[in-house]
C-alpha cells in the first residue's frame, strides 16, 4: 500500500466516476451533476462553476483516495473487492448524508426543506437519496461509487 497508489487510484477512480455520472445524465437517467453542484458553491456563473467544480471534484476524489488508504492501512488489507465494498458504503453515505444533508446546509445557492419565502435558491435540493434529480439517481450514484472504490482499492493493492 502506498500513497502513490492512492493518488493514482483516486485520480482514475474520480475520472471514471465523473464520466459515468456525466454519461448517465446524457442518457437521461439522472439530473445530478456533481461538478456543477460543487462549483456553484463558489460561482453562479454556470460555465465557471462547472470548470471549478471539476477541479473541486478531483480534489475530493484524491482526498477520499487517502481516506481509503488510511482505512486499508488500519485493517491491514486492501484489494479491489474491499475497495468495491468501501465504494458501496461511500455511495450510500454520499446519497444519504453528504450530498443530501451536508451539501444543502453549506451551499449558498441551494434550497433546503427549510427555505421559506425570503429565500430565492438557484438550485433545487437533492432530497433523500438525491431522488429529486431522478428516480434512477441512487442507482447511478451507487454504481459509480462502487466503480470508484474498486479502482482505488485495486490501485492501492497493485502499488503494494
Amino acid at each position: 500500500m502506498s500513497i502513490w497508489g492512492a493518488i493514482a487510484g483516486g485520480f482514475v477512480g474520480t475520472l471514471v466516476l465523473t464520466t459515468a455520472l456525466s454519461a448517465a445524465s446524457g442518457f437521461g437517467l439522472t439530473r445530478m451533476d456533481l461538478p456543477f453542484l460543487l462549483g456553484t458553491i463558489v460561482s453562479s456563473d454556470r460555465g465557471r462553476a462547472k470548470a471549478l467544480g471539476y477541479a473541486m471534484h478531483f480534489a475530493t476524489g484524491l482526498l477520499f483516495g487517502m481516506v481509503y488508504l488510511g482505512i486499508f492501512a488500519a485493517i491491514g488489507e486492501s484489494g479491489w473487492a474491499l475497495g468495491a465494498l468501501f465504494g458501496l458504503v461511500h455511495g450510500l453515505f454520499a446519497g444519504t448524508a453528504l450530498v443530501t444533508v451536508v451539501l444543502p446546509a453549506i451551499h449558498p445557492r441551494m434550497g433546503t426543506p427549510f427555505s421559506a419565502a425570503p429565500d430565492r435558491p438557484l438550485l433545487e435540493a437533492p432530497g433523500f437519496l438525491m431522488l429529486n434529480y431522478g428516480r434512477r439517481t441512487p442507482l447511478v450514484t451507487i454504481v459509480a461509487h462502487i466503480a470508484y472504490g474498486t479502482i482505488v482499492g485495486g490501485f492501492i493493492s497493485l502499488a503494494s
Partner: protein
Amino acid sequence: MRDAGYSPLREYGAIGDGRTLALVSSKGSIDWLCLPDLDSPSVFGTVLDAQSGGSFSLAPEPPFTIERAYLPETNALQTIFKTEVGVVRVTDAMLLPGSGLVPSRELARRVEGLSGRVPMRWGVEPRFMYGSRRPELSRRGETPVARSGKDALAVSSWDAGVPVLNETSISASYVACAGDDALLALSAAHEEPLVFPSRTEVESRLMSTIAFWRGWSAGRTYEGPWRDAVIRSALVLKLLIHSPSGAIAAAGTASLPEELGGDRNWDYRFCWVRDSALTLHALMRLGCPQESESFFWWLLHASQLTHPRLRVLYRLNGGDRAPESILPLSGYQGSKPVRIGNAAVDQEQLDIYGDLMQTAWLYASSGGDLDSDTGRRLAEVADLICELWRRPDCGIWEVRSEPLHFTHSKIMCWVALDGALRLAERDLIPRAHATRWQREAKAIRTFVDERCWSEEAGCYVRSAGSGELDSSLLLGALMDYPSERDPHLNATITTLRRELGSGPLLNRYSGEDGLGGTEGAFLCCSFWLADALARADRIDEATELMEQLIGLANDVGLYSEEVDHQSGEFLGNMPQGLVHLALINAAVSIGMKQRS
C-alpha cells in the same frame, strides 16, 4: 348531492410561507393545509371532506358577522368577529423561520379582544395523509401533541383556555375580554423531533413575518392602474412559489371542482411549463429579478431529465412523475372523484415548447445570462420542434379526447422557432440550424393561415379545419402572433368575445374535450381578453372589462380558477396562479397603452 359543512370557495383566504399554504374560511376555520410542503398530503382537508378531512377551527361561540382583510401588503389575514356580546380580532399567518431553533413549519393565530366579553372556542382536528390517518394524541409537558408516522404537530396556546384532548381532537373554550391577547401556535415536524416555541418567540416571528411581507411588497416596482389588485396578485404568486426550489405551483389546492358535484376535479399542486412564459413575464414586470432567475434555473434543471422533450408539468421538487390516483374522500360538496397527481403529465402538448423558448427569450432579453450549455439545449429544442409541429396534440387545455391539430399549439410552435431565431441573432444559442428554423416557422405560419383561419367564422378556430372556437387563441396575441396591426387579431378577439363570452366572463372553448359535465367560465381567459384588447388598441373596452373582472375577486382579492355563470360562485382550485398572472399582465398592458 350537496353536503352540508362546506364553506363557499369564495369565502376562503390564503396564508402561506413559501413552502405550504393554508385556506382560512370566513368562519375562522383552517380547512386546507398540507405538510410539510404544498404538494404533501393534507393534515387539514375539510375542503375535500367535511366529515373526515380535519380542520383547525377558531371562532366565537355566539352567532357572529365578520369583516376581514389582509394586513396591508402582507399575507397575514385579519378577521374581525362581531357578536352581540363583543368584538374580537384574529390574525392568521404562516410564520417565516428567522434565526435560531424554530419549528420547520409554524402557523400562528393571534386573538385580540376588542370589546365586550366574547366566549371563544377553538379545536384542532388533524387528519394526516388526506384524512386517512387518525392521529395519536398525547401531551409533552403541558403541550398537546398529535402524531402519525413521520409527522407530528404541537399545539401551543397562551391565554386561550385549557386544552382538552379527546380521541381525535384538541380543543378549548375561553372568554376573550376587551384588551385580552391570546395566542395559538401550530408547530409541525416531518421526519424530525418537534420544536416547542415560547410565546415570545412566536410573537416575535409573527411581527417579523408581517415586516417581511411589507418589505417584499414595497420592493415591487409596479405603479400602474389597479395597483392594489396587482400587488395582491403578486403576493399570491409569492405564496405559490415553492421556496426550496423556485418552482411555482399552478394553485394551492387539489381537486376542488370545476362543476359542483361533477368529476372535473384535478390536482394543481405542480408547476406547468405552459405557465412559464407568463410567469416570468409577470415576475419581471413586477420587479422580481431574483424570483425570475430562480424560476428560470429551476425550469432548466427540471426539464434536463427529459431533454429535449418537455413534460407538461413537473413536481415542485423537479420530479417528472405525477401518477394520478383517487382518494376515498367525499369531495367538495360531493364532487367526486378526489384526485391527486395529474395524468396530464404524460400527454403530448406542443405549446409548451413555445412557452419554454419565450421564457428563455424574456430571461435573456432582460439581461439574464444564457451559458453555452443552455444555448445548446435550447437549440436542440428548436430542432425538435421542427420535427414535432406537424403532429396533433392534446393542446393547452389537456383534452382527454383524440389529439387534434390545435391552432394554439401550432402558434406556440411558431413562437418557439421565432424565439430561437431571435436568440440565435444575438448569438445566445448556436445558429447552425437557423435556416431550417426559419423555413419551418414559415411553414407553420402558412399552415395556421390556410388551415386554422375560418372565413365563415371570421376568426382563427380551435383546430385545423374545425368551426370551433378557443379562448387560448388570445394567447397568440399576447405572444405577438398575429402582430398588433394584423386585422386577424381584431376579428378573432371580437368573435371570441361574442361567441364564448357572457358579460365579463369567457368560456374556454366550444366543442368536445373527452370529459363529461360542464364547467364555469375560466377567469384567466377573461384577463387574456382584456390584455388582447389593450394590445389591439381597444383601450376603453379593455379598461371596462378589467374593472368588471377586478370586481369578481373575493373580499380579500383572491380568485379561483373559474366562476359559475349563474351564481357567481368560485369553482376550481384556488388561489389560482394563472388567473393572478393574467391579471398582472393585463393590468401592465393596459397601463402601458394608457400612458402611450
